[in-house]
């Protein structure tokens, strides 16, 4: 078997295993979904009245932001799964097999994409129920979804690195909770950034989560007319987001791979 063929074959075996796990413990998926659905409802009906976004129904503005936050949280399953596998000795078993070792991470992150597709489908349905609509072409919308999934895929590799460093799922979950919330809140996600204090506003305008959300709003046609263009990254949301995806992958794929080898060899 060629080595690329072997990586792909072994990765699909690993991915299948992770998908079975999600099927067996639906709590995992439910856990990923409950908070975003709650967020949609809370923001749409509780805070929504107080957050005015001129020119658009707030719910329509909100839903792409929730999409972004949810797929980023979906990407954390990689980290907690790897930490769990380390703790239970499953990684040792993989390491003793003549498989492509990179398949453990490739398969793991790939299964997060599959989970996130499910998550997006459920989120879209929830969004449609509360009144969110896609106002562009099918193709534009598809680009928006692909961008969300690609960004989450890149984030999976950051999570893989963190999961392998902390080594227990509990520690990992605490870590992601306290990092992902600020990253997704100090952004264009839930409220327009022009009302932020200056420092936060600058951070938010360069935060890739902002550009991801902006790109999604553009692709779905949820950006109100006359909405402030903002910083350069927000004016070029799609290329800026793609650039981030590329940079994250280039940095974190090698780092996570190195950490996997190290962590397994302790």
């Amino acid at each position: 078997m060629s080595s690329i063929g072997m990586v792909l074959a072994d990765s699909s075996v690993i991915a299948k295993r992770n998908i079975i796990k999600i099927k067996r413990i639906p709590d995992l998926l439910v856990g990923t979904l409950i908070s975003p659905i709650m967020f949609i409802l809370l923001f749409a009906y509780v805070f929504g009245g107080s957050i005015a976004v001129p020119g658009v129904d707030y719910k329509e503005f909100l839903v792409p932001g929730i999409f972004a936050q949810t797929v980023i949280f979906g990407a954390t399953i990689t980290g907690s799964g790897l930490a769990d596998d380390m703790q239970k000795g499953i990684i040792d078993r993989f390491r003793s097999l003549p498989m492509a070792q990179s398949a453990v991470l490739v398969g793991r992150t790939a299964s997060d994409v599959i989970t996130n597709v499910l998550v997006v489908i459920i989120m879209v349905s929830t969004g449609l129920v509360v009144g969110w609509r896609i106002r562009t072409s099918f193709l534009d919308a598809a680009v928006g979804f692909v961008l969300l999934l690609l960004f989450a895929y890149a984030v999976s590799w950051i999570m893989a690195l963190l999961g392998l460093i902390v080594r227990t799922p509990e520690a990992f979950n605490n870590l992601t909770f306290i990092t992902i919330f600020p990253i997704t809140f100090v952004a264009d996600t839930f409220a327009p950034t022009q009302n932020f204090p200056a420092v936060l506003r600058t951070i938010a305008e360069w935060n890739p989560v902002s550009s991801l959300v902006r790109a999604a709003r553009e692709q779905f046609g949820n950006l109100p007319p006359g909405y402030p263009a903002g910083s350069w990254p927000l004016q070029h949301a799609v290329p800026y987001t793609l650039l981030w995806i590329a940079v994250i992958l280039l940095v974190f794929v090698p780092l996570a791979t190195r950490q996997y080898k190290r962590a397994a060899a302790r």
Partner: protein
Amino acid sequence: MSVGAPTVRTMADAVVARGLVKRYGDVTAVAGVDLEVPEGTVLALLGPNGAGKTTTVRMLTTLLVPDGGTATVAGVDVVADPREVRRRIGLSGQYAAVDENLTGFENLDMVGRLYHLGRKKSRERARELLEQFALTDAADRVAKTYSGGMRRRLDLAGALVADPPVLFLDEPTTGLDPRSRNDMWELLSAMVGRGTTLLLTTQYLEEAERLADDIIVIDHGRVIARGTADELKTQVGGQRIEVVLASDRELREAERVLRDLVGRDVVVQQRARRVTASVSGGTADLVEALSRLAAAGIVPLDAGLRRPTMDDVFLTLTGRPAEEVAGADADDDRDATRTQEAHA
């Protein structure tokens, strides 16, 4: 039996290690271990937690890169060509590395696919092994619902998926109840009878005696004795008389009485007020010892005859009981914690 150079073998060796060393910071977990396992034979590494057994196995199975020394498994160098080694070995760790969320069948099927047996062969092999390990009825249940003994069997089955010529088992029966332990011993004996080369680690002398052709006793990362089970037994002696006393005065008295009876080989544990004497005459020696104690006016709190344990091996070889070395061997410790968690 000697600690020095191993005897020359005529058979090919399936596993050879020369001067293996592993350090963790300032701590040397394995300090120059030499060993060889001739094809089709069983070697037991006997030692307490933290002795370096697990670290040695992890180096031989390519999970760890040694800091010194060389090792070959089935003729392949473990550092130069780890993947080729992995093709030829099966490993079952100290804790059962089964995926709890998969069924028994799915676990083995996955391992088969990762050995690249192909879809059809992997499934066949999974069914075959489930049958062989008496897990057919539980094949489609998730491993989470398995008992400790069943998990161990499933884990062992995982190590056998590719029918590897060399098998490594790290404490295969630690944490099992006596009945599961016996089942496991029977399975392993049958396997070895079919010609598999096996290297296992254990804390139980009885297990080493029962399964192994050769035994290596390891302490603080060093080999302190090696030989056949019989050689080790000759050196360590046969059964033990164990007497527990009510007072320190009686303890001293009992020690004297037993020394008169058996000669030098008497061990006193102050805190437990226990005297242990190695004997060759079985119950006759016990009766004799008790009547001599009675004649000296001593009535022990407890007295009995038992088989020698790993502790006796260490007492005989090193003059002190086997210690668990806290922190001396990161792996052994980590694994010990894990095992406890798994059984908590």
